[in-house]
């Protein structure tokens, strides 16, 4: 056959980098047949993950999460608002995901990235449905005042696994969140207590002290790529662009399934492949829980 031989011959003559650009799929398959990837990771291993809490000093809660080169900065700002009629004793969380043009060469100013609203919606659904935050904790005065938490996540470097990193940074930002002290002043309005007013006892304090939000069932996720019989965990941007079938599994800290997302793709998965993905996610969730706990205890020591 003409064509395979021609490529075979070329592969011995052309340099590695050129081969990688010209025949990306064959380049990857040569690695996958030896159960390794070009960055020397085994197929089931995720990249190095780090979390830094309190990255943005002006926000009420913030975190910077990095998985490999993918970097996300999440920050939470709290504002007081009136709760809706249907849920008078619940607060609200607004989640927004941004991909500014600095993160990737394919994002153009004026033309937002395709991935941004998709990840934004996914994140919103996952965080709200996982029940990580009890909205009743965000209430101040039933029917009159409640907290609105604005969570903004900025992608500073997009190198694959955007949803995983974004979810990790959101969870870390919530665990770092300090709800500010407020009190009800004479006009019936909620007023932020600044440091000078802490001694005053004539004002009824609605929020006694800076408190943390209790997080139950923290969600952790892992994105895997399916290609023929291989399952690659935590893809880079290059891998995502060549092999397009992605499966994202979100588990919570008690290993219950929160969300499963497979948006089409050329590879059809058997149930066994999905179960393998879930097993990989379970392992990854334990790793991420450890990393998050270390980051939190690191902050408390200070």
């Amino acid at each position: 056959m003409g064509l395979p031989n021609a490529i075979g011959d070329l592969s011995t003559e052309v340099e590695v980098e050129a081969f990688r650009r010209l025949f990306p799929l064959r380049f990857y398959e040569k690695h996958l047949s030896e159960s390794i990837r070009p960055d020397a990771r085994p197929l089931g291993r995720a990249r190095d993950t780090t979390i830094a809490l309190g990255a943005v000093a002006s926000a009420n809660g913030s975190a910077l999460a990095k998985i490999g080169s993918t970097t996300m900065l999440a920050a939470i700002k709290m504002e007081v608002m009136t709760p809706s009629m249907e849920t008078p004793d619940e607060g609200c969380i607004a989640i927004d995901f941004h991909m500014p043009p600095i993160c990737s060469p394919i994002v153009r100013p004026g033309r937002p990235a395709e991935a941004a609203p998709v990840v934004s919606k996914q994140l919103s659904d996952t965080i709200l449905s996982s029940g990580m935050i009890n909205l009743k904790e965000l209430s101040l005065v039933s029917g009159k005042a409640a907290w609105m938490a604005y969570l903004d996540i900025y992608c500073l470097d997009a190198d694959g696994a955007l949803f995983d990193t974004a979810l990790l940074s959101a969870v870390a930002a919530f665990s770092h969140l300090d709800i500010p002290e407020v009190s009800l002043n004479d006009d019936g309005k909620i007023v932020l207590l600044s440091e000078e007013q802490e001694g005053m006892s004539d004002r009824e304090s609605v929020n006694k002290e800076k408190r943390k939000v209790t997080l139950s069932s923290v969600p952790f996720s892992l994105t895997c790529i399916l290609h023929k019989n291989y399952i690659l965990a935590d893809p880079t941007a290059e891998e995502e662009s060549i092999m397009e079938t992605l499966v994202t599994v979100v588990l919570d800290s008690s290993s219950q399934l929160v969300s499963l997302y497979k948006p089409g793709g050329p590879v059809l998965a058997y149930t066994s492949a999905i179960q393998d993905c879930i097993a990989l996610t379970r392992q990854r969730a334990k790793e991420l829980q450890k990393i998050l706990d270390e980051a939190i205890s690191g902050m408390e020591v200070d």
Partner: protein
Amino acid sequence: MEYVSPEGLRLDGRRPMEMRQLRAEIGTVAKADGSAVFEMGNTKVIAAVYGPREVQNRSQQISDQALVRCEYSMANFSTGDRLRKPKGDRRSTEISLVIRQTMEACILTHLMPRSQIDIFVQVLQADGGTRSACINAATLALADAGIPMRDIVTSCSAGYLNSAPLLDLNYIEDSAGGPDVTVAILPKLDKVTLLQMDAKLPVDIFENVMGLAIEGCKAVSNYIKEVLLGNTKQLEYRRGL
């Protein structure tokens, strides 16, 4: 309100001629051709440069030089109150234009015809002097990307409050309503590329304040040169030279 106490200390404990602490880091965005983070006190800015690359909009292609584009945007959480419209508003558009024209003056665009250089600046924390921090970050990012320039561009701001010229205003001093002079210079060529001022100021005091801002720019340029040299030494070690 007293911006300079009788002992000569400002609200954050600095002397009138003292700059805030500078911190810079190169190569922070792996995907970009060049990137840098620049901090001036609490103002933190990240800049990324993509280019020279093919012009995305063929009709804008210039046959004998490179097209320089710049976008400035602020993160929602960068200021005290959450921003509703982080870009596309008048201030962001104006600053984008200012940064573009400042950098265009020093990039040797005739060496890269029919190509495009994109400079993106994102403000992560804003505490006054964001314009200057953006220009400094853009300079570092362009140097990291290896784009040929006439000279580095450094910028600093200065103001005049309580009858004292103050260097490097923070947000509180900036919103006090006094004059705010922003200067950007090419330090080695000793030329001014950007000069902006608002509010009224007598001409002799203006010369004083502008001189102070230029001193600030020179201090920033010394720091930037140190950072760039340190980066080059690192690259040398890695290549075993």
